Every structure is written in structure tokens, then in C-alpha cells.
């Protein structure tokens, strides 16, 4: 929508607010369908329906799924939820304790629920499902608990599992068959999901699907990234650890793998590859190529041909010293041997740190400017690797880690990246890590939030700050733009600090221990002085 522009955004004012009754990290976007706004909260995963046709947007109904309380004890990085989806009259979402639930969008009554995860193994679900052509796609979390990663497709009408593909193990489990044609030689061979691990390590090897799934209807393929291999201590799992930290393309109907690209074979730094896959058709050479645009956790911006999995370019979009670069002939990441963590030793100044140059929070692509707007981190780390013991339902990490600001001292950066010229056109340094996704509007305004609670609007062309609003809690939630029932453009975001980066506040951690929250406590020590926990929706619009 174009009502809000760089010229008038400074007049943006509050339309209404709503308290979610939760105080953990709020990462989900609000969802607006037919005059109703739906909000899915962190644990205990309340689903609210707000009536946008009435003044003040009163609650129409609330659905409480009552997930198991103990699931909070196996969720690695706060008890977040990354969103609900709408399809054919139903709101579909996941619960922390591993269920997928469909609720009637009008009545708020449950249509079906399917249990997919088992918290006894440390398995949770935090991702937002994707509905494509009658299938609900869901994946699990638990890469820090030795949970074997999978993606499942449920029938949208019944919730029954149509297919399920693991991301480690034998080809029959991974749904690798005759259609599988990866672009690079290192991904070809039988049962690589077994052979690239020590015996049986693939059974507890991670490769979870806690991020984003994209769908290309023309190719009928889904794309998703796989999480880190477990444990973090790389010496316990020699080999490439297929099919972790990479991107899969699968056939939507059957789940059969079509191609795979592993961004960081034998991941050393918890560089999950679960980040968003932005589908774009871009000019490349003399033709137009259907590609995936991927600002990776490992610090490289990838342009990948989405038909074949071939990497067209991979360029660092921030400070990286952990890798030397990607060999475009073999597709292989060239690691920096100086930064290779060894068991019993501390390896210092590894950049980017475990949360990556960018973590889960999606970038925004503007088809108008052709620019990808990337909210991300500038963090480095010290990494002490030690032997991890596998005990089901407990952490399987084997690392003593602490993070701190990278070069320049700022912990966050907002980068406007030109994927064709492979360079930043502008950037904004932010003091705190950026954990909120970005929103790019057709009016030429970019919105994002900061962990100390500023909600900002900047000019898409040059990054100039146009407007800001101080929310009651730090913002890690996803902003949206929507047309209200009155025809006006609204901008909505939920403030509620938390997540991995904000756990020091939402879980009340003690920052005297630099290793708390897997090392993030050291990087956000000052956060408890800058914000408090919350869970409040803010909706803005222009004055009449």
C-alpha cells in the first residue's frame, strides 16, 4: 500500500493497542484476514481474534491450546512462536510442545490438532507453518537437544501426515530418490545422511526446521533451510554432517528431494541455515533467472538458482573472519583454519558469532527498489569446545561460549543490500543486536524495531530516519502493513522482548555469567537496564 510515504510517515499515530497477557519473546507477525486480526503469542500460545471493524478492535474470541508446561524447559532460546497462517477459513499454528492446530477463523473452535513433536526427546515447534496447495508444512526445533530434524506435510483438511522427510539418516528417511539432482558433487552419493557422520550420530544430529519455508507454485517446489548439526562441539561429529546447515528443494506433493545445497558442510559455529528464502526473478547475465535470495547466518548473501541449486553468487554482507569465501566451482565454503574450534581449547574472536550475521528474523525484499533490507547482527564470539553427553531431553551442545560486539562496537546493523551489484547501498548502525524482521512498503518506507523498544521508519532510498515510536518493551516481532476495513493503511507490530538475544530480560537471567543463554548474556548485559518484558500490540495509522 502506498498511503504511508516518506513525506507523511512522520504524522503516524497510534490507532489502538492490545495486551497479549504474555511476557516472553514475541517474534510472530500479526495476521489480518477479512476485517479480523489474529495474534499468536509465545508459550502458552494463545490465539486471539480482534475485530477490526469495531472501534478499539475488541476481542472476538480467544483460543487457548494448553501446551504442556514442561515444554518450556526444552526450548533452547525462549518460548517463542514465529507465526500463524490462514487458509480456507482456518487459522493454523504450532504449539511449543509440538502440536499443529487448525482453528475455525470465524468461530475460534478447533477443527483438528495433530501431535508431531515429543518433548521427552527435547523436541519443540516454534516455526510458522506454511500452507501450500492443500498441504500444511511444519518442521521441528531442538538443534541444541540432539533432536533429529524433519519436515512434515499435513493434509490441510484433516491434519493427517501426508509425508515426512528427515534431514539426517538414510536416503529412504530423507526422501532422496531418482529426482534428486544436487548441483555439486559433494552432495551426490548413497545415504550421505549416514555416511557423513560417525556411527549412529545422525540419529541425534539436529538439522531442524525452525525457520521459514517458501513455495514456488510454478515449479511446485518448496524451499527450506536446515539447522545446525548437534552437538556444537564439532570434534564429536567428523564429516560433512549431511543434510544439516543447507537448503533443500522438495516436491510439494511427495516430499521427494529435488536438490540440496550445504552452505557450511561440517558446521563449526552453530550457523543454522534456516533463514528465509526470498523468491525473486532477477536479471542475470543476458537472461532472467528464478532465484532464491538468502542473507545467510554464515554472513554470506547467496543468490541461488532455484531450479538447480546452483550458487550464482555468495558475498559477505558484513564482517566475516570465520570463512574465506565460497568456491563457486565446487559450491563449497572455504573455512578459515585459524577459527576451527578444537575440543579442550578456546578459540577466540570468531565472526560472525553463533547467532550469525543474521539470525531468524527475515529480511524484506522490495520489488520496487530491487533491494533486500536486512536487519542483522554484528557479533563475534569466543568458543570453548568440550565433550557433550547425549541424555534425551537435555541439552546436547558441548560448548562454553560468549558473544560480544564485532568491529565498530555496534551489535546490530540494518543493511540495504543490492543483490545484483552485491554491495550495500546504505546501512544503519544499531547499538543492540537487531532481532526484529523488516517490513518494506510500496510507499517506499521501511519499518523495523530495536531491542530497546524503538519502532523506526526509514526511507527505502537512503535509510534516513523518518519517524520513531518508543514501545513499552523491546521489539523482536515482525511488523506488518495492512488495509483496514475502512480502507486506510495500518502498520502493526507486537513489542515483547525476548528470544535468544533477549532471554536475559524475558527469562530474568543473571548476566554476571557470560556464558548464560548459550553465550548471548555477555552480548546483551545492558539490556535489562534498557527495557523490560512485555507483550503489547501497537497499531499505527495516519490521521484522517
Amino acid at each position: 500500500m502506498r498511503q504511508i510515504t516518506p513525506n507523511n510517515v512522520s504524522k503516524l499515530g497510534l490507532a489502538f493497542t492490545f495486551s497479549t497477557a504474555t511476557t516472553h519473546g514475541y517474534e510472530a507477525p500479526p495476521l489480518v484476514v477479512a476485517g479480523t486480526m489474529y495474534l499468536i503469542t509465545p508459550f502458552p500460545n494463545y490465539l486471539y481474534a480482534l475485530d477490526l471493524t469495531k472501534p478499539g478492535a475488541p476481542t472476538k474470541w480467544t483460543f487457548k491450546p494448553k501446551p504442556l508446561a514442561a515444554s518450556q524447559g526444552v526450548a533452547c532460546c525462549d518460548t517463542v512462536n514465529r507465526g500463524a497462517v490462514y487458509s480456507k477459513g482456518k487459522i493454523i499454528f504450532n504449539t511449543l510442545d509440538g502440536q499443529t492446530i487448525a482453528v475455525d477463523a470465524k468461530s475460534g473452535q478447533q477443527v483438528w490438532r495433530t501431535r508431531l513433536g515429543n518433548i521427552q526427546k527435547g523436541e519443540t515447534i516454534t516455526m510458522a507453518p506454511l500452507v501450500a496447495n492443500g498441504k500444511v508444512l511444519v518442521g521441528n526445533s531442538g538443534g541444541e537437544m540432539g533432536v533429529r530434524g524433519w519436515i512434515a506435510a499435513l493434509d490441510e483438511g484433516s491434519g493427517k501426515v501426508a509425508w515426512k522427510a528427515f534431514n539426517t539418516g538414510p536416503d529412504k528417511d530423507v526422501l532422496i530418490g531418482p529426482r534428486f539432482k544436487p548441483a555439486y558433487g559433494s552432495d551426490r552419493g548413497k545415504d550421505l545422511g549416514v555416511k557423513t557422520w560417525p556411527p549412529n550420530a545422525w540419529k541425534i544430529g539436529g538439522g531442524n526446521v525452525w525457520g521459514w519455508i517458501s513455495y514456488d507454485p510454478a515449479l511446485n517446489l518448496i524451499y527450506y533451510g536446515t539447522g545446525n548439526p548437534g552437538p556444537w562441539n564439532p570434534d564429536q561429529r567428523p564429516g560433512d554432517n549431511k543434510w544439516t546447515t543447507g537448503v533443500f528443494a522438495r516436491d510439494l506433493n511427495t516430499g521427494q528431494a529435488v536438490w540440496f545445497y550445504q552452505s557450511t558442510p561440517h558446521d563449526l559455529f552453530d550457523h543454522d541455515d534456516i533463514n528465509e528464502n526470498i523468491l525473486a526473478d532477477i536479471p542475470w547475465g543476458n537472461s532472467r533467472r528464478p532465484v532464491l535470495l538468502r542473507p545467510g547466518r554464515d554472513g554470506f548473501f547467496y543468490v541461488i538458482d532455484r531450479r538447480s541449486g546452483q550458487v550464482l553468487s555468495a558475498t559477505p554482507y558484513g564482517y566475516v573472519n570465520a570463512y574465506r569465501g565460497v568456491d563457486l566451482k565446487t559450491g563449497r565454503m572455504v573455512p578459515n583454519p585459524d577459527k576451527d574450534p578444537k575440543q579442550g581449547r578456546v578459540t577466540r574472536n570468531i565472526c560472525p558469532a553463533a547467532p550469525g550475521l543474521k539470525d531468524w528474523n527475515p529480511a524484506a525484499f522490495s520489488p520496487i527498489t530491487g533491494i533486500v533490507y536486512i536487519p542483522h547482527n554484528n557479533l563475534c564470539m569466543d568458543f570453548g569446545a568440550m565433550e557433550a553427553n547425549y541424555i534425551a531431553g537435555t541439552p546436547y551442545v558441548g560448548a562454553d561460549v560468549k558473544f560480544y560486539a564485532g568491529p565498530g562496537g555496534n551489535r546490530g546493523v540494518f543493511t540495504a543490500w543490492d543483490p545484483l551489484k552485491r554491495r550495500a547501498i546504505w546501512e544503519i548502525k544499531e547499538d543492540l543486536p537487531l532481532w526484529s524482521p523488516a517490513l518494506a512498503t510500496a510507499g517506499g518506507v521501511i519499518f523495523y524495531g530495536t531491542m530497546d523498544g524503538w519502532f523506526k521508519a526509514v526511507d527505502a532510498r537512503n535509510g534516513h530516519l523518518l519517524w520513531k515510536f518508543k514501545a513499552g518493551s523491546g521489539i523482536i516481532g515482525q511488523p506488518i502493513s495492512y488495509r483496514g476495513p475502512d480502507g486506510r493503511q495500518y502498520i502493526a507490530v507486537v513489542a515483547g522482548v525476548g528470544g535468544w538475544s533477549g532471554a536475559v530480560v524475558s527469562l530474568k537471567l543473571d548476566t554476571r555469567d557470560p556464558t548464560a543463554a548459550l553465550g548471548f548474556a555477555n552480548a546483551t548485559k545492558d539490556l535489562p537496564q534498557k527495557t523490560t518484558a512485555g507483550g503489547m500490540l501497537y497499531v499505527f495509522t495516519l490521521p484522517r
Partner: protein
Amino acid sequence: MSSRFRANLTIIAAAGLVLSACDREERHSRSKPIGETVPAGQSPDTIYPGSGTPPPLDARAKLYDNNAPAIAEGQRLYMQMNCVGCHFHGGGGMGPPLMDDEWRYGGRIDQIAATIAEGRPNGMPAWRGKLTDDQIWQLAAYVRTLSGQPSKDAVASRSEEMSNTTPQTLTPREPTKTSDTAEQ
């Protein structure tokens, strides 16, 4: 034992050091059986109807509190049983911090032992049957070092891990009254 011992330390430092060296090597004898059980459901509460008197500290507590070998063994278990993966070196993560002054289920060693044995509803696993009662007491003794409870001569003067946590001899001592401000 500990208070008398600390008095010694302050009055005659040298004698105290000698005693300390002896104390650190002290191990409880297996020939005289101790009641090797964890106090099931030891109350984490602060309201005791009728008398207002909390239950007396479990008699076995003194075998573990301030006992250097028990604490050292507890530290080893804390790493190996993955306690460290949730609580880290006291700052917390998936589990609450253990180095601060907030004790939802009580900070007494018998209360901590009960929490380890029974688990707690918001995600703390129940370890009874997975660890011996002796090990659970040792873990509880170590957990108390994270908030500086034992005397400084019973704890390690250097970190056993690779992290940059401060040595436990420098850990500040926090109050341990039951407190429920940390919701998780």
C-alpha cells in the same frame, strides 16, 4: 562446623589454613552407612500452618554442605549430566539462574536436592532413579556454590571449565530465602 571453622580462620589464619587442608581431604566413611535418601518433596514453601516453623534442615545436609570432595564431584556431574546446558555457570538459560537470590523452590541444600530428585513442573527434569541419592546431594552441594553459600575453602579457586567465569572463591554470597519472582 563451618562457622566455628571460619572463626578459626579469622583468629589464627595459619592454623586455619592447616585445618582447611585437612578439611578438604575429609570424606565420609562408607563403613558407617548414611541415610542415603533425598528428602522427597522437601517443602519449598515459606508458610507453615500452625507453628510457622520451617521443617528442620535434613540431617544429611551437613555431610555435603561445605564438603570439598562432594562439591567437586557435584561439579563434575553438573557438567556431565548437562545441567550446564540449561543453567550454564549459574546465569541460566533454558533453566533459571542459580547464582542469584531468587529461589522458587527453596535454596536450602535439602530443598535443592528435592528439586533435582523430583523435577519441577515448568521444565526441570526429575532425576530420581537416574542419579543415586548420593549424587543428587553432591549436585545440590555444588549448586549452592554458584550463589556463594559454602565457605570459600570448600570451593575451587580456579574454574574447571574453559569459560571466563570468575573462580568460585570470588562468588558473592546471595541470600537464599524462597522467592518466586522469576516466572518461567
